[in-house]
């Protein structure tokens, strides 16, 4: 099934939700084996872009290809793992019962639930009811479910939100371990200091892509000291152009 197509290839993607343009002509590629961060303020369209890549978003125009296939193609369904922002697991089932069910749906190996549980550091909570876990633990159950079946592309919508610094660091280590094992990760965040942990960055604002580069190159190009500074400098550069167009 492997081919040389990029993990994600988006061309001129436009999405309209509720009469309002949410994505306005996005072009991007995500290289295989990368840990790509999708950064931008809340409400800038990150989730909509991720949903388009997973193939659950109705799009207005443009093209989204994933692993060389149209996004949402049936044969992609066990090759792409998706974690929504709110943990999407059954609160009235135990952690393992959740994972066993999703593993069965995916046709993943029977040993997978225990494996992914250890990977997200919840090995001792297998028998706990998800409803009794903390918010951060629930988020990790949701992440664990996406790791079942070892997908080639993982699309993670703010997976580290609300986690303490130690856990965040552990999760980023896990992301890099997965990438080293051949997976591609696309991780959104509105916390700019997570950018340094990515191998490639996509900066988004108001439905448009501001920049697409490595963290190092972005810092060099803008002369900023951190990604937050680089982002602000890019916004400042883009502003005159938009007001001119408005005239």
């Amino acid at each position, binding site marked *: 099934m492997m081919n040389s197509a990029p993990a994600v290839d988006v061309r001129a993607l436009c999405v309209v939700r509720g009469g309002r343009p949410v994505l306005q002509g996005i072009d991007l590629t995500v290289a295989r084996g990368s840990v790509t961060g999708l950064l931008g303020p809340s409400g800038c369209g990150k989730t909509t872009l991720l949903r388009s890549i*997973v193939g659950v*978003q109705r799009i207005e125009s443009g093209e989204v290809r994933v692993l060389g296939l149209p996004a*949402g193609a049936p044969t992609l369904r066990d090759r792409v793992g998706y974690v929504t922002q709110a943990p999407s697991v*059954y609160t009235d089932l135990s952690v393992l*019962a959740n994972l066993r069910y999703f593993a069965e749906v995916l046709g993943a190996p029977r040993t997978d639930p225990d494996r992914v549980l250890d990977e997200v550091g919840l090995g001792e909570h297998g028998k706990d009811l998800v409803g009794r876990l903390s918010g951060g633990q629930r988020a990790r159950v949701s992440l664990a479910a996406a790791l079942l079946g070892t997908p080639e592309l993982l699309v993670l919508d703010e997976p580290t939100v609300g986690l303490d610094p130690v856990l965040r660091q552990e999760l980023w280590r896990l992301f890099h371990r997965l990438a080293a094992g051949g997976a591609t990760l696309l991780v959104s965040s509105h916390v700019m200091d997570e950018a340094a942990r990515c191998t490639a960055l996509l900066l988004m604002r108001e439905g448009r892509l501001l920049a697409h580069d490595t963290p190092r190159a972005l810092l060099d190009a803008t002369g900023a000291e951190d990604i937050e500074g680089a982002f602000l400098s890019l916004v400042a550069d883009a502003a005159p152009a938009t007001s001119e167009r408005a005239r």
Partner: protein
Amino acid sequence: MNIRRTLATAHRVLLQLRSDPRTVAMLLLVPCLLIVLLRYAFDGRQEVFDSLGAPLLGIFPMIVMFLVTAVATLRERTTGTLERLLTMPLGRLDLLLGYALAFGLVALVQGLLAFGLTVGLLGLDIAGPSWALLAVAVADGLLGMALGLFVSAFAATEFQAVQFMPAFLLPQLLLCGLFTPRDTMADWLHAISDVLPLSYAVDAMNRLTSETGFGGAVAADLAVVLGCTLLALGLGAVTLRRRTA
């Protein structure tokens, strides 16, 4: 459609039910309790219980199954697990049939309990075969389940889902022939009742009450009830969209 995924889904739904024993107890016992109330509300007038017992044996499970299924599937939609499942290799029919199997099993147990109570302990006397009574009762439970699955697509909150009971089921209850025979209704009401599935459920029960044997008319009514169940499941599948706005 994939057997393994359907069975896994049914198993998961049953596990969820098991973690909520109060709901299971109410699912199984409330119809029984209502039938006992009916029996003693007409104490000493066995002929009234005999004529109402069979239709209500079909109606109570239908209402209970409708509510439970509508809320359960709505919860699947609102908690994001439905979206997760639809990004996975799970067919829409796998999901619906999984639900149908799990709740169908509940409907069967519920039907057996209510039937045993009504015919065994309370001495309901009908002309037709009692196994047919059980079959129609279980079919009614399945119909309630399928309708609940379908209407959950049109509810955004659990409050709305619960309101579908009076909005969707009570008109059927009023027109099904329980309160007044359908052929004495005004033509337009009769016409409406002709397209409501509960009318056929009650027709079947009334025939079993008054006619001996399992006639073709009962079989036809039962077929309409099962056909509506399949239709509601099919419409439910259409409302499950992988791509949403």
